[in-house]
């Protein structure tokens, strides 16, 4: 059964550095999402992407964040200048219709 994959599984970075989190959605899916979960807190929506553009974004998704689908298979989340509070588990998801399929997550630690 096809699955959403994410790389890396863990990422440690220094505050102020740029990070790129990568996701490969399920191949025939049309909608792509990023969520994050700060330790001990709820899963929070960041952004959704459809037809090569952002369709929805939350207040969390400010100018420090960007998403891209560079080559038709990968879906990336870039954080330009990481802050301590960006430390979280980042989940990618994709869907064809209503049901969203989640990746295993990337744990980001900003020092």
């Amino acid at each position, binding site marked *: 059964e096809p699955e*959403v994959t994410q790389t890396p599984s863990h990422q440690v970075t220094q505050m102020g550095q740029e990070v790129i989190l990568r996701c490969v959605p399920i191949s025939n899916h049309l909608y792509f999402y990023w969520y994050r979960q700060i330790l001990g807190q709820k*899963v929070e929506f960041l952004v959704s992407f459809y037809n090569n553009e952002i369709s*929805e974004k*939350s207040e969390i998704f400010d100018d420090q964040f960007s998403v891209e689908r560079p080559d038709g298979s990968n879906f990336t989340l870039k954080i330009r200048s990481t802050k301590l509070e960006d430390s979280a588990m980042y989940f990618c998801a994709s869907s064809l219709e209503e049901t*969203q*399929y*989640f*990746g295993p997550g990337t744990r980001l630690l900003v020092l």
Partner: protein
Amino acid sequence: AQRVTQPEKLLSVFKGAPVELKCNYSYSGSPELFWYVQYSRQRLQLLLRHISRESIKGFTADLNKGETSFHLKKPFAQEEDSAMYYCALRQTGANNLFFGTGTRLTVIP
């Protein structure tokens, strides 16, 4: 604004006992409700959604619009049901999900 509340962070039941994981929501429109489950070291996966009215792994959930609830129930808990359970809401016309804080269910053998 929409909100999903799962009042219990932790819930322990004995194997074979009934289990109910509570979920209440706040949303002025007509929501779509989901239960996602995360087993140890695995990814979030859909357990069930209210519009399909299915029973998955013995779990059921009924949307009660009067009480704005979508509680997850199973009559006889199994050890393999031990996991983190998240209730989620999707607004009309939107794709993103709003999650509750989750309930960690432990089934005691």
